[in-house]
């Protein structure tokens, strides 16, 4: 998809327009509103890189303080990692936490991490560890591809079902 936008409309507006068009069967759309001109082609121009990420459904942030009089201190250990709704997520297969636990990127302190962004992984490769009461649970890539994003900071608590990494599957 290719877009040409004037500065008179927001990024969010464009994203909404694209969502509407994307859910239709149209191959190509030209939209002109005064100074603003938008051209969308479903299969794009060769070599052009997409500027809009498809809207991943981010898990709801549940660290709200609704009605609370005293928000907890911001001690590092107290911050469960809830994916923020505003964080754009890379396109690909999301690896979700199958349990609540502490997220580790490396097999031991000081050891090199299992993967970095850009690493090529096989289905059975371990990409991280979730520790639950001293029990180390290896989390596998689950598919062949390239690590597109690591969504959690090392040594933090992750919720059940939250996204740990995103793998861009090999074609």
């Amino acid at each position: 998809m290719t877009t040409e936008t004037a500065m008179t409309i927001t990024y969010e507006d464009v994203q909404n327009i694209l969502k509407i068009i994307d859910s239709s069967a149209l191959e190509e759309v030209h939209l002109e509103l005064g100074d603003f001109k938008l051209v969308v082609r479903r299969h794009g121009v060769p070599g052009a890189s997409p500027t809009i990420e498809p809207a991943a459904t981010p898990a709801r942030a549940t660290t709200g303080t609704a009605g609370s009089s005293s928000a907890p201190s911001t001690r590092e250990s107290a911050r469960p990692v809830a994916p923020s709704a505003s964080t754009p997520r890379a396109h690909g297969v999301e690896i979700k936490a199958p349990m609540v636990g502490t997220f580790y990127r490396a097999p031991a302190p000081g050891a090199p991490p299992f993967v970095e962004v850009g690493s090529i992984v096989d289905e059975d490769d371990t990409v991280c560890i979730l520790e639950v009461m001293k029990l180390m649970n290896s989390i596998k890539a689950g598919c062949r591809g390239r690590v597109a994003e690591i969504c959690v900071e090392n040594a933090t608590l992750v919720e059940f079902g939250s996204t740990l990494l995103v793998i861009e599957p090999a074609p």
Partner: protein
Amino acid sequence: MKRVLIANRGEIAVRVIRACRQLGLETVAVFSTADREAAHTRLADRAICIGPPPAAGSYLNIPALVTTALGSGCDAVHPGYGFLAENAGFAETCEEHGLCFVGPPPSAIQAMGDKVRARELAAKIGVSVVPGSDGPIATLAETASVGRRIGYPLLLKAAAGGGGRGMRVVRTESALADAFVGAQAEAGAAFGDPTLYAERFLERVRHVEIQVVADAEGAAVHLGERDCSLQRRHQKLLEEAPSPAVTPALRASMGDAALALVRQIGYRNAGTVEFVLEPASGRFYFIEMNTRIQVEHPVTEMLTGVDLVTTQLRIAAGEPLGFGQADVVMRGHAIECRINAEDPALDFRPGPGLVTRWQPPLGEGIRIDTHVAAGTTVTPFYDSLLAKVVVADGDRPAAIARMRRALADFDVQGVPTTIAFHRRVLEHPDFVAGRVHTRWVEEDRQASRGPRE
């Protein structure tokens, strides 16, 4: 103690969060994916998803709970009631990881958890238990001699059992043989263990329990009784205090018995010692001890002005109780009705669904403990308790009148409720006269089903 993980859901999680906030403690709630929008999830300072809807993967998942408590910087865990509240292993695991368990020591949970051992312990310190066989009975001849010793009617019970299976009431010795063989066969089929034991069958008894609190220094007081005779298949429906069947002298001797047990097992924190009471004779017998906060605790709070949940937290933090037996004053009368998402006309069948209208009663002397609001979805995964309506007034007739008014004002739509059932009970001459017993609901079909509406 600074930050408390609440290892529960529903109205009790909300209750504990409020108590924590009252004391300036931070709260971390846990939730299953079915409770993402639940009240406790929204109310806590922080909420963490710990697993899927079935409780075994979430609210009963000890490693997930302990990991979450540690990872979110908690230093204490409140278990609420149900789920892991009376699991000695959970209390122990918390302590091993440096988390303060808001409840009794694991040893006290264990001592009271085995019902046969608890009964023996009570008997040993002179608290009367329902007369029965000392341990299991192997033969018909042995059972007959137990019957001659303690008298009829006799209740045969499966040692491994519960839920009424392998259970027989025997009224005369001539009927014993049939009942013994039948109960044995039923127990074997239901539990894979035909072992029986026998107890004197007590008819027309009331369920009366004593609330106790004890601190780490060994100071222990009781906060009087709650009468929970109105129950159905051992599920309490309505509780009140004081009991219409308990005199001040009887209250004192039940309180003494409860505190003797508390001291014997080195109990700490809040707990409840349950008895059956024969109203005519004033004789009472120990049944069991619940080593946790109970559903019906607000009845005692309304009557005595003691906040039991903040007291639990203070005791767990090492503070002294701060009051003695002489300071405990009971004023007036309090009643609690449990409003469940159940249909009394359909044998109290649970009815999950979307609550489309929720208008609880308001006003003087009324307290509502709930996690429900309009738009709440009642899921089929957990218990059906929607709310507890608690009222207090100067005396029993006034409290009954206040509860009638409160329930008349309670408008719930979208799910079935037990509101209409309670309204019938509150009008029933037996209840008004204080004459109900633990089998009254089952025996009085009019009360439980009522006319078709």
